[in-house]
């Protein structure tokens, strides 16, 4: 199997403060990988370094065997690396449709964009209903769907999803994970960051545990659920 994204000895930080220490990671094509860990220990930072929002201090990132370190965020998107950011970074003063159109920014041709939009509406019928509505007036769950749908518009090979369940009601989280499960069948490689592993265990092939900017453990979801020490120490559950 070929690796979709490969990270070797990555360090990064903000100013003088180092946040990620020597991270290495190899994700094979079509895999769903979850990263869990306590709040504020570098999970989101790792995604931002991967997507190019935050520069790495050292180390390398390869996509399909090609180094992408020097690329800016928008160039990485063009290579097929999609990040769905944490919270709702939707465009608040644009309609649902316009938000989706922005997702299709790199797509060529009206018909292609229409095809993708319709695909997203199929996946999220709620969004189709809300088509002309201004994004800021959507509910939290709808906005999260919009964020994911917008990400799907790019049709990239790799999707980095940052805390999809953050701040949502359990019912809505169920919906979000239904969608993620569907995504798994569509095929792109997924890297999902979550604070809590419970939901992730259902869809992930492999789970990494991050603490203080380092991976301290990795294994399959089954192994995780069997390791009570780990759960007690890090996840407090």
């Amino acid at each position, binding site marked *: 199997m070929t690796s979709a994204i490969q990270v070797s000895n990555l360090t990064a930080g903000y100013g003088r403060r180092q946040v990620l220490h020597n991270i290495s990671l190899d994700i094979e094509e079509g895999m769903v990988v979850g990263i869990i860990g306590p709040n504020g220990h570098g999970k989101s930072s790792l995604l931002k370094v991967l997507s190019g929002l935050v520069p790495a201090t050292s180390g390398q990132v390869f996509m399909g065997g090609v180094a992408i370190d020097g690329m800016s965020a*928008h160039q990485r998107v063009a290579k097929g690396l999609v990040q769905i950011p944490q919270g709702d970074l*939707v465009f608040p*003063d644009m309609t649902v449709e316009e938000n989706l159109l*922005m997702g299709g*920014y790199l797509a060529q041709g009206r018909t292609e964009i229409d095809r993708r939009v319709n695909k997203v509406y199929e996946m999220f019928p709620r969004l189709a209903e809300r088509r002309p509505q201004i994004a800021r007036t959507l509910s939290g769950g709808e906005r999260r769907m919009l964020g994911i749908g917008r990400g799907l518009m790019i049709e990239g090979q790799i999707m980095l999803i940052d805390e999809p369940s953050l701040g949502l009601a359990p019912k809505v989280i169920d919906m979000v994970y239904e969608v993620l499960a569907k995504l798994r069948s569509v095929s792109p490689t997924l890297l999902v960051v979550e604070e809590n592993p419970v939901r992730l265990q259902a869809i992930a092939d492999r789970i990494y545990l991050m603490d203080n900017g380092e991976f301290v453990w990795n294994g399959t979801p089954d192994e995780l659920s069997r390791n009570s020490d780990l759960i007690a120490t890090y996840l407090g559950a």
Partner: protein
Amino acid sequence: MDIFLQIIISGVSLGAMYAVGTIALSLLWGTMGMMNLAHGSFIAIGGYMAYWCMTVMGASWIFVLPLALAAGMLGGYLLYHLVVRWMFERKEFSVDIIIATVAVAALVENGLLNVAGPEAKRQPFSISGGLKLGDVVLPYQTILTVAVAIILMVIVLYIVTRTKMGIVIRAVSQQQVASQLMGVNVMSAFAQAMMLAGGVAAISGVLVTGATQLFPGVGFDTTIKALVICIIAGLGNLRGAIFMAFVLGLFEVAVQYIFGQQYGFPAMLSLVIVLLILRPHGLFGKETVERV
């Protein structure tokens, strides 16, 4: 009756000038959150291009607007790459850019002073005469200015709401990080926005100087009034701004007529103060959600 008509016509003339001068300012503010106090420089550049084209080169008036558009776009491009992009990421951008663009305005004014001289000039791209309505005259220049203001507004609105470029500019202004994650080159989107605004401002400069006169500091007054209008209309609300430009023009002229010329501007500013106290987000502005 004539007096009433006269007030309407003077008010519309003034309002047309305000309106045409407001569009570019409102555009930049609405998209980039940038209060461009160098707006007046673009107005002056447009005016001087017209003067240069028709008086110095002796060319036809046909070339004036394209030339002004090109000069304004170039100016917008330069302003973005030389100044704006360096401070855009800062937290205090909204204040920093005020000071920076004032410095740019002073620089441009000084340059024009040294190159073109301090004298007030007649800007030749204008129509004299007017339509006789009884004892009152509706100047053709006013009709032209109103027409161009509305055409510019329609074009700008079309670009911003209907074209890909417009959607991208709006997206970038609302959510930079997300735009990047959609594959948008934020820098070039802003450069485009500034070029559009620069071109529109330069064209408005041709109109404004045609109705008044041309000198290096010509844009300052228009800028101040345009700012006031944008604020009253609400952040970046282009349609509201155009509407308010005419309302304020009429209001100013009516006050001038009833209470005396000297009270026009202070009354307009007082109205702004009262409006802002009552409606802190402008008349047509939305309450923005504050980011924590």
